């Protein structure tokens, strides 16, 4: 975020009636500082609980100021709560899910945007509409279908479901992006005798890199944070992604708030890291969506 702000100033002219910038600035911060503090207070509170000892919480209550420092919550969450394994599961599902979805979506978007497929507009909107369906309507049949295919309770099932369910939206966004690529570029390649596969791999995909990066960032948070599909197609503790594992942790360590808080913090770390590493892409990614 900070990076993009520093770019903007040069283009934005000073505001109209800025006769008393000092005082207005002061008022601005007087409002924003407490507001921001209020906003991060819940996170700070949970963080302090994660580092308190169980005895301290049990004796003095959750609301008390911390008097202890302990990593017990984290060790318990990692060992007994198996948060580490759950994070690995989530990472696997997210990685494979994002790559496969984007690959398939880019194929479909390529076909729809660069070739005269009959009813391509209807197909595109149909695919998007599928993605906009509330997932609840799919839960029961998907659970039964994965069962009858013998993939129920496997990470593979979770990946397949995530791929199927995400396709429409990504195709729609990539379609918009690919249509913006000037035709001349492709014509030149075609004259050189390049087939569709070559055009897709050598020309379209490199040009789509920014859109793909943006969608990848978006898809990562969606898949990583999913709970409803995880509880629908999985039942084995070993295979739970982080969201389901956290609920399990909470159920198993009832009233051990330091463990629960530690688990929540651990679960938030990867997404926080991804976010700060790719925040530029996030913003531009949202813009790709905003364009449509």
């Amino acid at each position, binding site marked *: 975020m900070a990076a993009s702000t*520093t770019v903007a100033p040069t283009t934005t002219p000073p505001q109209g009636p800025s006769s008393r910038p000092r005082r207005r600035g002061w008022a601005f911060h007087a409002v924003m500082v407490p507001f921001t503090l209020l906003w991060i207070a819940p*996170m700070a509170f*949970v963080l302090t609980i994660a580092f308190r000892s169980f005895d301290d919480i049990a004796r003095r209550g959750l609301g008390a100021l911390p008097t202890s420092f302990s990593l017990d919550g984290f060790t318990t969450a990692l060992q007994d709560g198996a948060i580490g394994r759950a994070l690995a599961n989530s990472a696997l599902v997210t990685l494979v899910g994002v790559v496969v979805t984007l690959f398939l979506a880019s194929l479909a978007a390529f076909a729809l945007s660069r070739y*005269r497929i009959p009813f391509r507009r209807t197909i595109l909107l149909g695919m998007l509409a*599928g993605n906009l369906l509330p997932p609840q309507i799919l839960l029961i049949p998907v659970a039964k279908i994965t069962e009858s295919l013998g993939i129920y309770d496997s990470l593979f099932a979770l990946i397949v479901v995530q791929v199927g369910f995400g396709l429409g939206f990504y195709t729609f966004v990539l379609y918009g992006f690919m249509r913006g690529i000037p035709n001349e570029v492709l014509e030149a390649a075609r004259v050189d005798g390049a087939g569709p596969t070559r055009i897709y791999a050598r020309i379209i995909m490199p040009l789509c890199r920014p859109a793909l990066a943006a969608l990848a960032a978006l898809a990562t948070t969606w898949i990583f944070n999913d709970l409803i599909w995880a509880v629908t197609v999985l039942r084995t503790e070993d295979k739970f992604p982080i969201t389901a594992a956290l609920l399990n942790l909470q159920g198993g360590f009832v009233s051990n708030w330091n463990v629960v808080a530690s688990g929540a913090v651990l679960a938030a770390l990867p997404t926080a890291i991804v976010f700060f590493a790719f925040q530029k892409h996030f913003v531009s990614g949202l813009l790709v969506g*905003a364009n449509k």
Partner: protein
Amino acid sequence: MSSTATVSGQATTGPPHRRRPAAAVRRVPRIVWLFLLIPLAVELAWVFWPAINSFSLSFTRWSGVGAAENVGLDNYRNLLDDPIFRTAAKNTVIWTIGFGGLSVLIGLALAVALNRPRRGVGIYRSAIYLPMVFSLVVTGLFWRVLYQPDGAVNSTLEAIGLDGVSRQWLADPDTALYAVLVAAVWRQVGYIMVLYLAGLKGVDPSLEEAAAVDGATAWQRFRHVVFPQLRGVNTVVFAVTVIDSLRTFDIVWAMTRGGPYDSSQLLSTYMFQQGFTLVNLGYGSAIAVVIFLLAIGFIITYLVRATRED
């Protein structure tokens, strides 16, 4: 940043695809059909086929074992008499309006306030966006801790002398739904803010300047100059908000499971309870169909707008 440029360029100069027709390929190579059909088949198999199944299941009674028994419209008729369903439907409407309205209002206000570069703006933005990186489950757990009888919310209220206001937020049927709503909005606001910040970048500053010279107040400038230029973003925000609010499941499930006594039940949690806890698969499917019908209304609006703008 490169895509930002593309976007604002398109927004102002109009769609760039006008020069296509003549150059378009007449015959579609076979491999291209494959490109399209593979993803399409996956989506058909995992989205459309289950959705159709859900519709047909909603006319049956089925406990997951043996064959489903056809009961016609019974499930829908029972829904009408089901007080929990009515609560859940009412709550879903409250949720959609409250969640959507609050997060859009606060998010837009923050975007406008933080749009102009000043000292500290980057920190404010990051702080407000940060909750977005947490999953709804994590958010739910965070806020469960906060809402405990001796948790931070009550401690804070007591510290500032508002003892009378403190209560058991998640255990009180009057507040449970709203307590969850606050947590969900807390997470969503940053997302909406970033969307609007992105949209505001595309707003032409000279227009606003001109209006300011003409003596328009800040509110008038926003209402008549800035806001109309945010149309594209508004559509996205609208779609994201409606879909997110109808999908809401995780955070309620993690915080209250629809309780106490169904007071925070949403259609999605009630559907999950019926379908998976009680294994009334037919009845659960009927609820899912109702959610679908609610969503479809919004989706049609969205698609119509998206198409018109093209």
